[in-house]
């Protein structure tokens, strides 16, 4: 989504850039070795090639210019995941009821709002969480301006209440 390439980086930006490339390379190599479990030369070469393609693609997307390893695995994140899981179950059942209702009681609504979270990763988390919850769908994410499509007015109200936005913006604060 909108990971702005002009987000200010730190002083040692070239060094931070290289550090991100190396960290991602190590993670990719470890993931390949753990998942495959084969150590034949051909398989290892294919793995190295795949990692290189991912790194080149990420570089071309300017991913390394922004702080991509920004997810902090705090208790807050796991609480947010639990809350999101409950929301997904609740709205899945709601959408199931609507789908199986012979009258199909939908009222598609478009909601626009400005999110409080500022970090690009947080905005992606918020946009994806909205889409992941059945009944709401992120249509457009432009800086902090979100356009969300909701299947019912109730879903639109939930988005306007902004509880998800609040929880996501709190992820980064200690």
């Amino acid at each position: 989504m909108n990971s702005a390439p002009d987000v200010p980086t730190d002083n040692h930006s070239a060094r931070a850039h290289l550090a991100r490339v190396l960290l991602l390379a190590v993670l990719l190599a470890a993931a390949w070795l753990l998942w495959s479990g084969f150590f034949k030369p051909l398989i290892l070469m294919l793995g190295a090639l795949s990692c290189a393609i991912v790194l080149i693609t990420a570089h071309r997307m300017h991913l390394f210019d922004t702080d991509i390893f920004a997810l902090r695995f705090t208790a807050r994140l796991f609480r947010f995941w639990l809350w999101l899981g409950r929301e997904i179950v609740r709205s899945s059942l709601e959408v199931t009821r609507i789908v199986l209702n012979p009258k199909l009681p939908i009222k598609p609504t478009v909601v626009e709002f400005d999110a409080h979270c500022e970090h690009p990763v947080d905005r992606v988390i918020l946009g994806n969480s909205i889409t992941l919850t059945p009944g709401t769908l992120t249509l457009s994410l432009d800086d902090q301006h979100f356009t969300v499509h909701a299947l019912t007015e109730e879903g639109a109200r939930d988005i306007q209440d902004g509880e998800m936005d609040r929880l996501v913006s709190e992820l980064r604060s200690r």
Partner: protein
Amino acid sequence: MMDQALIKIVLDTISWILLTAGAFFVLVGGIGALRMPNLYTRMHAASVTDTMGAVLVLCGVMVQAGLSLATIKLAAILLFLLITSPTSSYALAHAALLAGIKPAAGHAADEEHHA
């Protein structure tokens, strides 16, 4: 010996409940995708398959796999699915928006068509 058999029956039952529930939500997603009037509302229905369907089916398979490397791989698949499926949904919805498909329009017209 008795206990082992009992544990296997309990695990199988849990796994089958999860798989059946997952299959139910996949079916609901399919029915919804057919019944909904336009692109965006169809995507709402399909997201039930992406979330509840995928989570329940994969959890059911995880119970079958037990404590093994396969379960860790399944958990990773689940995690990646939960990250990539909304990302691709966003790509689809945003492309539709840019292509000029109006989100709210077409609803009434489609309803006439359905009635």
